[in-house]
């Protein structure tokens, strides 16, 4: 409700900035209230707002200590307890929803106060035990996270202090990233096929070289449609005799499968290949 703007400007962590000290804790009909009057006579709804700002009994105690510039390590329990009870009574009077934790703390304060009056028992290592020790530890522990929260609040935050860019790329379309597959994947897939088909258990046959299979696809692709292709054009002498043989085997294989046919229009004339059925 208050101080949002101030925080935006002062989001450094430095403790020396005195401006922050003057931040109001509440606004009453537009006027900032920076300090609670000692006599507590302030407009009831401002008081309500003020009392509601406490994050619990530890927070209220911290406020009481800080207000009087007291050191946490040296709190006068009797006085702080008296003030604390005043506030708790006020909250009850105003019928604020009083968390049970406030009453638990009140009981704890009363207990510490009474123990302060008694001679202190010695612990095993011969040290006197301060009845306030546990409370002081809790106060400090809470305070450090309260400060951490304030520091976090002042960090530049996306959407509040800093902004991400959202530039349109109207001509770009998302690339579909294709899965990567390796030869090993392919081989392992083929192994599975072979294993399932149990090819080897029934027939132990000579496999034709892959190169012939590949060449069969290439030739079939080349003779698509009605085109006649000269038989000799299928051979690339640069491939050497092995290449030529592979082509020949592929052609023969295709003829056997009736996938292509050979046409020779006259004896000893050029031989042509065409796809069957076209």
């Amino acid at each position: 409700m208050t101080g949002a703007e101030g925080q935006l400007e002062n989001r450094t962590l430095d403790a020396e900035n005195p401006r922050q000290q003057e931040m109001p804790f509440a606004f009453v009909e537009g006027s900032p209230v920076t300090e609670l009057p000692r006599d507590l006579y302030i407009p009831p709804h401002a008081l309500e707002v003020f009392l509601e700002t406490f994050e619990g009994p530890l927070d209220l105690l911290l406020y009481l200590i800080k207000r009087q510039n007291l050191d946490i390590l040296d709190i006068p329990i009797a006085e702080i307890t008296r003030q604390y009870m005043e506030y708790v009574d006020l909250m009850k009077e105003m019928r604020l929803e009083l968390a049970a934790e406030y009453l638990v703390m009140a009981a704890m304060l009363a207990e510490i106060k009474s123990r302060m009056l008694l001679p202190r028992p010695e612990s095993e290592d011969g040290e006197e035990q301060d009845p306030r020790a546990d409370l002081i530890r809790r106060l400090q522990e809470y305070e450090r996270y309260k400060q951490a929260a304030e520091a976090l609040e002042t960090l530049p935050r996306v959407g509040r202090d800093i902004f991400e860019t959202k530039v349109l790329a109207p001509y770009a379309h998302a690339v579909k990233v294709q899965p990567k597959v390796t030869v090993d994947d392919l081989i392992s897939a083929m192994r599975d096929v072979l294993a399932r088909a149990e090819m080897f258990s029934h027939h132990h046959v000579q496999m034709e070289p892959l190169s012939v299979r590949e060449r069969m696809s290439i030739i079939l692709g080349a003779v698509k449609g009605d085109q006649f292709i000269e038989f000799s054009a299928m051979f690339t002498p640069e491939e050497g005799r092995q290449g030529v043989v592979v082509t020949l085997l592929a052609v023969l294989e295709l003829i056997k499968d009736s996938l292509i046919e050979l046409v020779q229009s006259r004896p000893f004339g050029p031989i042509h290949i065409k796809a069957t059925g076209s």
Partner: protein
Amino acid sequence: MSPDQLKHVIEAALLAAGRPLQLDDVIALFEESGDVPQRGEVQDALAELSSDWEGRALELVEVSSGFRLQVRKEFSLWMGRLWAERPPKYSRALMETLALIAYRQPITRGEIEDVRGVSVSPNIIRTLLEREWIRVVGRREVPGRPELFGTTKLFLDDFGLKALDEMPTLAEIRDLDQHPEDLFAGVSAPAPVSLAVGMSTEEAVPSTPHDEAGQASVSKTEETTD
């Protein structure tokens, strides 16, 4: 506010808004601070911004709903990867289909199904065609004239192969079960061109079909095992 400052605020707004901004939208930015620029000043700043981005990746365009800083068309190619979906993983069925097409091409879908013992989903064939790893190389002249599939050059490129015969032969794959450590020996070994031993180029071409028929029948046996 200096013209430069004004320009920088407008630039920030155009980059962060996520929508085109009208002149009035731009002017409204300054209402809170009290230092509201004239329309002419804003227009000058926009003109300057436009030339600032010349030769760089963004361009200032005016569309129906206002001004927009957008990625130039020339840079769009690289942007595609920004929103790329996580690549899916290919199914076992797809890999087996691809393997069969590679090893037994040209092959029909029905023949693949015969070997695999299950039907091949049209999606698998479509995916492989779209990936341009396989292509239709012809049709088998049997009832229904089913398409014959074969692998492509891109398939070889994508798998880092110069030719199909760089893949291990089926016999070598079978041996892997016994001697897995031979895997790489098998991959690098040249395909068994030894089949062609004894034929010279001169002999090969003019030779009668009958000579080769015997050879062909070798593969015929294999065909029947499908």
